[in-house]
């Protein structure tokens, strides 16, 4: 990959990588660090990384960097679901579903969270997500199913707290 191609990668993927990192880390500065780190790694490896593979390489680096960050800040990341539910119901009686989902995803285990984000944000296939995260295709599907089910249950719980059935 030459310099022009690298710069094109920045144009094409910086925003998307930032969205991914921000959604997983829920911290703007940390997300920016992840983006910088990922592109720095791609630049270092540009002689061996083809332009066509650059996106997958970026996300692979970002995924691992995010996991490191998440583990480093485990206390922050492992938000308690019950606290989250209380916060949401106190905040607004009519929460925006997408906003709630983006906050709720922070309560999921990291593999579920990252797999869902790679799927929903980037439209990666399960095989590609497996390549990035090091999981098998079946494990990716299981993580996504469990993650989505957890999100569904959170939405239901908030709904019940706001408007409890008689």
């Amino acid at each position, binding site marked *: 990959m030459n310099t022009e191609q690298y710069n094109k990668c*920045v144009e094409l993927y910086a*925003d998307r990588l930032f969205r991914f990192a921000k959604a997983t880390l829920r911290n703007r500065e940390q997300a920016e660090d992840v983006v*910088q780190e990922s592109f720095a790694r791609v630049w270092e490896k540009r002689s061996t990384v083809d332009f066509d593979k650059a996106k997958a390489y970026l996300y692979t680096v970002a995924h691992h960097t995010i996991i490191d960050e998440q583990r480093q800040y485990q206390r922050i990341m492992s938000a308690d679901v019950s606290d989250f539910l209380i916060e949401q119901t106190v905040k607004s009686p009519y929460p925006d579903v997408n906003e709630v989902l983006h906050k709720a995803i922070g309560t999921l285990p990291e593999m579920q969270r990252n797999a869902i984000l790679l799927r*929903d944000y980037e439209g990666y296939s399960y095989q590609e997500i497996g390549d990035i995260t090091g999981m098998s295709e*079946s494990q990716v599907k*299981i993580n*996504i*199913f*469990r993650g989505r089910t957890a999100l569904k249950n959170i939405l239901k719980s908030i709904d019940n707290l706001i408007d409890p059935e008689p």
Partner: protein
Amino acid sequence: MNINTDNYEAYLLDYQEGNLNESEARQLKEFVLAQGLDWDELTEELPKLGVPNLVYENKEALKKRTKKVPLFAQIASIAAALALLFVVFWKQDDTMPKQELIATLKPIAAHTLETETYASTVPSKKTYQYNNQSVKSNRVEKTETMERENMPLVAEMQPIATKTLELSGSAVREIQPNLPLPLYLLNDYYAYMDYSDYDDASEYSEEKPSLIDKGIVWLSDGRYNGFGHFINSALHRAKQDVMETTTKVAMTAYYKIDYEIEEAKERWQEKWEQKEEE
């Protein structure tokens, strides 16, 4: 299809996404019911995340400068270098109105000059007298005799008309590597910093002495004459985007000297001849 307790959730996801045929869906349902699980609940629609409209704002900082230099930039650089050499070696005489040379470059709003502060921050090689003041210089030769009645203001170096090169962001960056003269010689204090992340910084480090050896040193001392201050004050004002600002300023100044120099030369020549006749 081998459904078991370890993988049935993967098949449930496939089912939700419509990736199972009728037979496979039936097998899955039978398995789920056999496990005593709630088929309806497990096959409820699952939420998906919408993509937020977030933008990474520091893309320019991530980008690298390319080595590819447009032809016009190469020509402009050569022309400008020649023009600057002309300025360096143009015969000067105390009887001549020295301001005239730069009088073609009329002042605009002046910037604050921090001569003392700046002089103390740059690496020094020599000290020479300038308006009875000791000034440290990187200049290799012909520095001690340098005299002027008045130190020209930074603003004087700005041209009459603004002829800013209309360059897109990317074009500016492409030109950047081809500007070792203004960036190094005008501003080598910053150049080290500016090029520190350049992948081939060593090339520039090696190139710099050779340029100085060629005698293109005027700009190096130009900082004390005001020109460098102009660049540096611009840099101080735009630390967040040093490289881009440097390039734009340097290119603009470069281009303008090149543009104005012929007129200045002619006018000065006329005055010189008039003086001779007198």
